[in-house]
């Protein structure tokens, strides 16, 4: 079995963010392995351990994203592919899907896993776009994922609008993963030491027959703004009975939602 996991390096979304004159600044330039990618790596490792095989991680990003590949390898992935792109500004889901599709078009694999979205943009399109470009069956938003050797299929439990759907997806296929499916392992010292010896292939856009201006997905971000400010709320005080009366009165007469 070969599981390929598309991973992404993202800014730490928990760090404070400011918007100034339409541009975005953060107090830290700390970059991390996207949490959904990490769950996809973890699940691939679990399946490879159970059924035999290897996990390869694939990342599109600048030189400094190499540390994120190393982290996934330290978790247990066998090898990495770094599609090197120094300037990732303005890349949309369509662009990532185009680059990844060019890479995977002459690769062999049983399943490609991606995060269901990434923590920075929450767009959640790249997986489905990549599957469509490669002509693969796929399922998005897996909260549970197993491989079934008898049917040569991935058994996906996806979170639907009401309830969870269990879907058998024949390999080769693509599945996008939620971070609800597992707790990604923290690499140990041994894994970190080993990761330095493992192979990371570096690939350029030119190697894939692509150029920077040919890959856009047709969307662009022209700037950022703050969320519309919420009106400052009311803090109610008193004992339980009193609080309940005040709230009912406000919901009824002020918010008019009763």
């Amino acid at each position: 079995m070969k599981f390929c996991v598309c991973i992404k390096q993202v800014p730490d979304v928990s760090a404070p963010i400011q918007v100034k004159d339409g541009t975005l600044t953060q107090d830290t330039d700390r970059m991390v392995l996207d949490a959904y990618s990490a769950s996809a790596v973890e699940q691939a490792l679990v399946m490879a351990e159970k059924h035999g095989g290897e996990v390869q991680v694939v990342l599109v990003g600048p030189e400094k994203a190499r540390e994120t590949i190393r982290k996934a390898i330290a978790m247990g992935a066998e090898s990495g592919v770094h599609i090197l792109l120094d300037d990732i500004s303005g890349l949309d889901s369509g662009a990532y899907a185009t680059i990844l599709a060019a890479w995977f078009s002459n690769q062999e694999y049983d399943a490609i896993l991606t995060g269901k979205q990434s923590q920075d943009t929450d767009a959640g399109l790249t997986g489905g776009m990549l599957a469509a470009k490669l002509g693969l069956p796929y399922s998005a938003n897996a909260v549970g994922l197993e491989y079934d050797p008898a049917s040569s299929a991935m058994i996906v439990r996806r979170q639907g609008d009401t309830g969870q759907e269990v879907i058998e997806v024949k390999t080769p296929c693509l599945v996008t993963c939620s971070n609800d499916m597992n707790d990604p392992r923290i690499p140990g010292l041994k894994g970190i030491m080993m990761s330095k010896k493992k192979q990371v292939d570096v690939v350029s856009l030119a190697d894939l027959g692509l150029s920077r201006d040919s890959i856009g997905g047709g969307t662009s971000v022209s700037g950022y703004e703050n969320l519309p400010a919420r009106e400052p709320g009311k803090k109610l005080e008193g004992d339980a009975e009193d609080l309940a009366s005040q709230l009912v009165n406000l919901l009824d007469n002020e918010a008019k939602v009763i």
Partner: protein
Amino acid sequence: MSLILTYIATSDGKIKRSSLEVLSHCREEAKKNGHTLAAVVLDTDPDSFTGTLEKYGASAIYTVKNPIFKNHLNTPVIEALAAVIDKVKPAVVAFASTEAVKDVMGALATRFDAPAVPDVASFKVTGDGLDALRPVMASKILAKTSGKGDMVFVSVRSGSYDATESPVSAELTSVPFDFDEGGLKNILKEVIKASGDKVDLNEARVVVAAGRGVKDDEGKKLVEELAALFNGAIGASRSVVETGMFDPSTQIGQTGKVVSPELYFAIGISGAIQHVAGMVNSKVIVAINKDEDAPIFQYSTYGLVGDLYKILPPLIEKLREARANA
């Protein structure tokens, strides 16, 4: 004349409220831009919805009837929508951003080599595509995002627009759809419905969400009682889902579902950013928490500092009276 095509999601014989919200907004955008407003509905019995769609202003309605639409599966939805889109060549294809839509939009946009702008808080149709505002970075800021092209896909967060009526009479077109189930490479085996799924979180006007402050069955019962009063949906923070007390389907947040009901009760929820990302656009937010410094109070319309176990029983009683008198 160009066309704005709105995808109409149905569930249990009803059109989802979030789809009517998007349809209403698209109607206004169609008017401004001189476009026709069209709707497409895939269902086992799509003709039963055309009256409602006319009421909300769809002047062209495309129906695709097939038993496979009883439950969600991405391949037939993609194939059927692709057939309709191919036929009508819309300038904009708009969806409510549901879990089902997240399973089809990327692949569908790729099929038409069209830009896709997902999960927006608002959008405007322009001469060459659309301009939208999208929450990003854990919904802490909005990105001004444009999609440009002859055809652009967009999905809209529920609660972003009001569903408003504006009746017209529509031209109805039934689109034939022969689907070979035998050729499917993905097969729906089972749908697991949890007890908390009685009311769809994305559709509910009132959501009562539990956090770690809800510690036991007694607390859970109070949450359920409060939700039942409003025929509301039950939600939960990730940490309380992890205890096993609430079903994973109820999880609200950046990871779980994003909701924006008219009234949101945060019961014993501290308000971590990941949770706030999933509920901050609710119209009225009531927070009950023991800790007066809990971050949830930065977002609440009405903040009640105190013990939920003491506050909820009299609150439920008084709300019941108030609703009976309303």
